[in-house]
Every structure is written in C-alpha cells, then in structure tokens.
C-alpha cells in the first residue's frame, strides 16, 4: 500500500467492499471497488439480467432550498440550461452546469422533492470528481438566494437491472408506483431513504440516498436478496458506455458544448429560446447553425477495442476526430466507443478508421445506445 493510498477517502461501505473481496482502486480521491471476485464481465452481465448493487456514495448529494420552490428553481436555472420551474413534485431531470464559453462544468441530476418532504427543495446529485468545485460554484452564484447544503452524512446506492423493481418492491411496495425519472421518500429495511427511479446503466433501476450510518445495514439487506449482486466501478463504466451515457471528464468537459455533445434534448424549449444561463449565446448559435463537431457512437468492425484518445481518421487518412470513451461491451460482445468527429463525418454509417497501435482499424458511426434502454416509463 503506497503512502498516497492512505490519503484516499472511504465511503461508509469500505469495510463491506473489503469483506466481499473487492479489488479497491483510487477514484476521484476515494478508495472504491472496481470489481468483486466475480469480475467485470460477470457483474456487467448480471446487471442486465438480474439486479446489480453499486456503491456511488463518492458522488455529491446537495440539498438546494429557497423561500419557495419557484425561487430555488429560478436560481438553479441561472446556472443550468434546463427548465426546472416546470418540475412537478417528485420529478427528476438531467442537466449540467455551463460556463461562459458554452462548455460543461459538470453534469447532474436534479429532483424536486415530492410529497411528504419539504417541497421547497431540490435534491441535486453531482459527480465525485467535481463536487468540491460544484459546491463552490453554487455558493459563488447562489448563496444570496438559496440555502446550499451538501449532504455529507448520506450514502448513495444504485440498484440497477430488470429485477431491481421486483427486489425493491419486497422492501417498499410503493416503489412499484414510481416511474422513470421520479423520486420520493421510502422506508427501506426500516431506514428512511430518498429514492429516485433512474440510473447510469440504461436499465430500469433506482438510486437510494440513505443516512451514512445505515448504509452498511441496508446494503447487506439488499445483498441478502438472491437476485442482487455487488457491482463495481469497472462494470459501471462498461454499462454506461453501452447505454451511450456520457462520462464527465471523458465525453463531456469544459471544452465541449451540449450541442456538440448531442445533449440538446436536455435543454428544454423555453430555455433554448430564452437563454439566461452561462454560454447561452454560443449554445443558441450552435443550435441554429449546427456545431462544428458531434459526439457519436463508433463501432469498430473487428474485435480490437479502441480506447479514449484514439485518433479517428477518414479512409483517406485525414484526422477528423478522437475517441473519448471506448472499450469492450460485454452485452454487445464486442468493442464499443464514443467520440467526437467533425460534423461532416458524423452521419450514421460513415466509414472511418481508428488509429490503434499504428494501424488503421475500420469502424462505422453508429447510433447509440448500443444496447436498448429499458426504462420504466
């Protein structure tokens, strides 16, 4: 164990991961489980057939409140291009913080806390690697208008897969009523949780916010269910890649706009027209004129994976882009990738070459997701 390992943060489930035989690796300053003895392939495939349980407690959970819901929503809209004002109690939306260049500072999930809780607040989940900056960003811009409370005493679990709903119903029958992208309080195993029906795998599933002191207890109860297996960050990455979902820092960064990233669907119509978020002018112009490059799915035609930073060339050898995420898709049973290509080479079916270890490997622009989404709508 190196000296730097001793500076890593631990989630409330660290001891459990070690007990389960997890291989631990540093991620975003945390000591996280990348896989368990079953291995990444098995964990990935299990999530698409049963229910995988992930510890995502490293992510940031923030409670944003104001005098009333509308004030909190309007405040957050000054930093994000989504329409939050129209959220019904319990409704969840995907969005991102933009900067003045129209780039993305982080992507996030925002839920209007629903019936039974203080309906004035927004529950925000941000990436672990950005949470310090995100909280600073919120405070720098909104502290006069909102109460910004990082929920440091809460863990976050993700239960994902076609059997997740059947598992959760055994703990809380009302979970059956939840549709995709909604959230509500639920008592699970005697513990008060806030649960959303959403995730990062493309499967039906839930994200469960639970008090840190009860996370180990709840996790053990969930793992006692025969359909539930622990899944690490390795499979989390292959699952989201197959689902065509962006990884902040790879596929979206401060130098990618939401238009280039094919995320305009997350900028609701009113915001596209009105602006009122950082970089709105640049983003509006790109929506009108088309962006210079686009994030696309890329399917290598052979068996060799092509990973992040692989150059993308035309068949005549001109470099037109770069892969931002790539690897092996266990459900696709072959290599999958996403990256940015110059817009004139972004049409589905465009033939490209991926420069892997000095060789030009043929590939095609492909639609994402690579495995169909199975959200419970």
């Amino acid at each position, binding site marked *: 164990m190196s000296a730097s390992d001793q500076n890593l943060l631990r989630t409330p489930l660290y001891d459990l991961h070690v007990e389960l035989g997890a291989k631990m690796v540093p991620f975003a300053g945390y000591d996280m489980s990348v*896989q368990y003895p079953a*291995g*990444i*392939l098995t964990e*990935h495939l299990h999530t698409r057939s049963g229910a995988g349980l992930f510890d995502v407690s490293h992510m940031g959970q923030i409670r944003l409140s104001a005098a009333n819901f509308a004030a909190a929503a309007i405040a957050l809209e000054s930093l994000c291009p989504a329409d939050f004002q129209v959220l019904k109690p319990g409704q969840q939306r995907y969005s991102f913080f933009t900067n003045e260049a129209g780039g993305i500072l982080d992507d996030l999930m925002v839920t209007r806390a629903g019936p039974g809780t203080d309906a004035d607040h927004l529950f925000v989940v941000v990436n672990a690697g950005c949470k310090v900056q995100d909280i600073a960003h919120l405070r720098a811009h909104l502290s006069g208008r909102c109460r910004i409370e990082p929920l440091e005493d809460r863990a976050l679990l993700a239960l994902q897969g076609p059997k997740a709903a059947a598992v959760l119903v055994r703990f809380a029958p009302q979970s059956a009523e939840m549709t995709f992208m909604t959230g509500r309080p639920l008592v699970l195993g005697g513990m008060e949780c806030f649960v959303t029906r959403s995730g990062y795998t493309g499967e039906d599933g839930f994200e469960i916010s639970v008090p840190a002191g009860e996370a180990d207890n709840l996790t053990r109860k969930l793992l006692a269910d025969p359909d539930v297996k622990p899944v690490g960050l390795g499979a989390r990455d292959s699952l989201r890649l197959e689902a065509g979902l962006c990884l902040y820092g790879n596929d979206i960064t401060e130098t990618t706009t939401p238009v280039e990233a094919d995320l305009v669907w997350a900028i609701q119509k009113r915001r596209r027209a009105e602006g009122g978020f950082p970089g709105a002018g640049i983003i509006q112009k790109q929506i009108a004129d088309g962006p210079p490059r686009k994030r696309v799915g890329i399917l290598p035609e052979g068996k*060799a*994976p092509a*990973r992040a930073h692989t150059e993308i060339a035309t068949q005549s050898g001109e470099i037109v882009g770069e892969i931002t995420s790539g690897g092996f898709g*266990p459900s696709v049973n072959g*290599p999958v990738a996403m990256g940015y290509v110059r817009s004139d080479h972004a049409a589905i079916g465009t033939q490209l070459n991926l420069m892997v270890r000095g060789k030009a490997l043929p590939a095609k622009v492909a639609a994402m997701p690579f495995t169909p989404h199975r959200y419970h709508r």
Partner: protein
Amino acid sequence: MSDVRYSQEHEWVRVEGDVATIGITNYAQEQLGDVVFVELPEIGRQVAKGKELAVVESVKAASEVYAPVSGEVVEVNSALTDAPATVNEDAMGKGWFAKVKLANKSELGALMDEAAYKTYVKGLH
C-alpha cells in the same frame, strides 16, 4: 522434457527442443481480469527479448505481453481470437500466445524457475 521459466513481466516460457511456447502466468491473468481481446504477432516476425510480442486486453485496459526470449514466431494460438477468455481459464496451458524458434538459448538462463517466480510474486505485495 520441457521446463517452464518465468520473466519478471509475468510471462512463462516452456521449451521443447529449440522452440519456446510463451504465455502469461496465472498471476498475470488474475491481475488483468476478464480478457476480451488478444492481438497476436504475425508468423515469421522476429521478436527481441524484452520487446512487445502481443497485446492482451481486459475490459478496462490494454496490456503488452513482452517476449521473454528472442527468436522467430513460428506459430500463434489463433483460438484466442474467438475465445480470449481461455487466457483466464487456462493461462499456463491452453491460453498460450505464441511459439518462438529460439535465437539464443542462453537467454533462458536469465529467466526464473518456478520456485524463484513464486518468491518473486510473493514479494510484490
């Protein structure tokens, strides 16, 4: 009579006559995790000790397999193209990568025997 020797990069070599069968050790496959792709050298390629012989990819990353000995590639295990998991299942046997006609048998002397390799692996933790 074949004798297995090991490199510090976790490759094994089994010599029969002047041909060496090369693979990665069980320790190496455990560290890698599930193997999803193997890139084998072309037959006829001259490989130099310590230089890249093949590439083995897990879900997460690509790793180089180095030639523990110099020589000419005379055979490759094409079965690995369709069944890369064989490397995990039987790294020391069916998961072999390539056979190399030895250019310099004295290079074997620099490799570890089984006992030395076991000690070496223990010392890595």
